[in-house]
């Protein structure tokens, strides 16, 4: 059986304290496997964003335990968690959040710089990464000179800079038209398949369900059984 990259058990999260506390995640268990595209879907307020924060170690759960490759991250302090994110996670944000005054190459180089990669090496690596997402011809473009789809690809290249095991994407297709949305998903799917990294996507976009290996539905802070109009497992490829 495939060993999960990340396992979360009994994840509970409250916002606030005491009687006014609101429980947004209720005893969630989840495994993230290599080479899979996992979608987290659910209505607003279902807790999917909070869950992805916790899975990405941006937020500590109120209760529960997360292990990465079988080892708990519970005792790591803030600095260690930041280092953990740097080494094991790549994040793709809905708004891309590229530095507007840096070129595509330089935006990717920032992520490499955080890893301590020498500038010249980082530049070559950034060009490779941009080439791998189909932006080899736009390496010196500033974000203002790129289309939304191209910005998204720069963000993906930046997320890949540290060669992370897990990519976490927040609504990666929300700002894209159908064509660019499908291209972005094809890219993420290819990254999962060929590099055996897990891609976890928070989305409302039903168009991208076809790319998923698994879809987890959240409602009221719980993972619920699949609704009748969709299924948990798709034929895009099973996680091996």
């Amino acid at each position: 059986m495939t060993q999960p990259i990340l396992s979360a058990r009994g994840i509970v999260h409250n916002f606030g304290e005491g009687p006014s506390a609101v429980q947004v995640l209720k005893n969630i268990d989840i495994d993230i496997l290599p080479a899979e595209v996992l979608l987290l879907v659910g209505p607003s307020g279902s807790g999917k964003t909070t869950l992805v924060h916790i899975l990405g170690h941006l937020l500590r759960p109120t209760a529960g335990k997360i292990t990465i490759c079988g080892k708990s991250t519970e005792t790591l302090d803030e600095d260690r968690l930041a280092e953990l994110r740097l080494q094991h996670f790549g994040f793709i944000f809905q708004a891309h959040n590229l530095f507007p005054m840096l070129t595509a190459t330089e935006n990717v180089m920032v992520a490499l710089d955080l890893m301590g990669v020498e500038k010249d090496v980082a530049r070559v690596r950034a060009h490779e990464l941009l080439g791998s997402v189909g932006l080899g011809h736009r390496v010196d473009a500033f974000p203002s000179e790129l289309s939304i789809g191209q910005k998204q690809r720069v963000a993906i290249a930046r997320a890949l800079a540290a060669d992370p095991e897990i990519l976490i994407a927040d609504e990666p297709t929300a700002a894209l038209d159908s064509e660019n949305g499908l291209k972005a998903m094809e890219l993420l799917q290819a990254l999962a398949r060929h590099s055996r990294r897990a891609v976890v996507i928070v989305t409302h976009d039903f168009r991208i369900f076809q790319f998923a290996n698994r879809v987890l539905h959240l409602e009221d802070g719980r993972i619920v059984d699949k609704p009748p109009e969709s299924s948990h497992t798709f034929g895009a490829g099973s996680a091996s």
Partner: protein
Amino acid sequence: MSGDDTLYALKSRTESASAAASKGARMTLLIAWRNLVHDRIRFAITLTGIAFSTILMGIQLGMLLNFVHTISTVVDHAGADLWITAEGVPSVDLATPLQERRRFQAMSVEGVAAAEPYMLHFGFLKRPDGVRQIVIVIGIDPDATMGLPFAMVDGPSAQEALAEPDGAVIDRLYADKLGIRTLGETVEINSHRIRVVGFTDGIRTFTQAPYVFMSLAKARSFFYAPDNDIAYVLVRVAEGYKPEAVAAALSARMSEVEVLTAGQLAWRSQYYWLVTTGAGITLVSSTLLALLVGVVIVAQTLYASTMDRLPEYAVIRAMGGPRSYLYRIIVQQAVLGGVFGAAIGLAVIAVVVVFTRHLSSAPEVPLWLAFGIVAATIAMCVTASIGSIGKVMTIDPVKVFR
């Protein structure tokens, strides 16, 4: 990746990442620079603010330095090791009479190589056009070796000038003010005629009363002073003797006088004019105000720039970048602003110094002060970044998902 190999592997990887992130930061300077210049208008405002602050600081401190030097200029350039004064003289310009017998007493003290009389008295100069101007008359023996007008630029030597009948020496900075156009012209001081036979260059006055050098005998006659009245005795210490030791010996020998080293009299004069009168405090206050203005302007523009970049900074935090990475960006941005703003400010100060060097009051900005101003400007900019750093400290990386 599989199995149990990973926590230790993970730990070692993250530790090396930590070290890399803290020592790396090769991109922070680029980000800082681009942050600074990305918005051209804000960049211009920032540089203007910093340059303004630098100019204000430079001019104020330059004026202060000029005042300090001007106040004690006759002491600093007299060539005397010790000054014997009447008790309680607050400043070299505010002399009270001293009997010349003190000079003879001084000469009998071991370690005194020379003791010469020096007279200093305020007087009224009447210009050829009838306008009256207050002056400070300094009387020295023409054969004196101390206290002579220094920096002679026109006319005979100082001794020859003082030896001429009715001869006097003034500084050419004040020639217009005293109604003198060329050497040889005459004016009156206390109704006595003098003829300007020599010009000095750069003997400024702090009191707005220009110095007029003449022979001791002439000065005494102008003020109807008794033959044995002088203002100071200037002492040169013999080789091998320490001025402080000779000063102590002189003090022990003479009562009702003070024996001061040149440095002590210079400091006393500077303290009197700059501290007691409040003139120096005003200049220092203006300098501090300039610093404050600079801090406010830089802090505002830096904070606005930081606020603009918060989403990107949050991304860096989310990616696992340490806070120190962000601090470095902000501090480097502040330092870059400081360096460029100070450079502009110094250029303006240099122009001001060049164009005011022939005025009676001009800022003095030696190299050490220029470096000090640059350092103060950079320190000011870094101080101004504290607010932005405080903001970055509160960045929550999860916000980038919203």
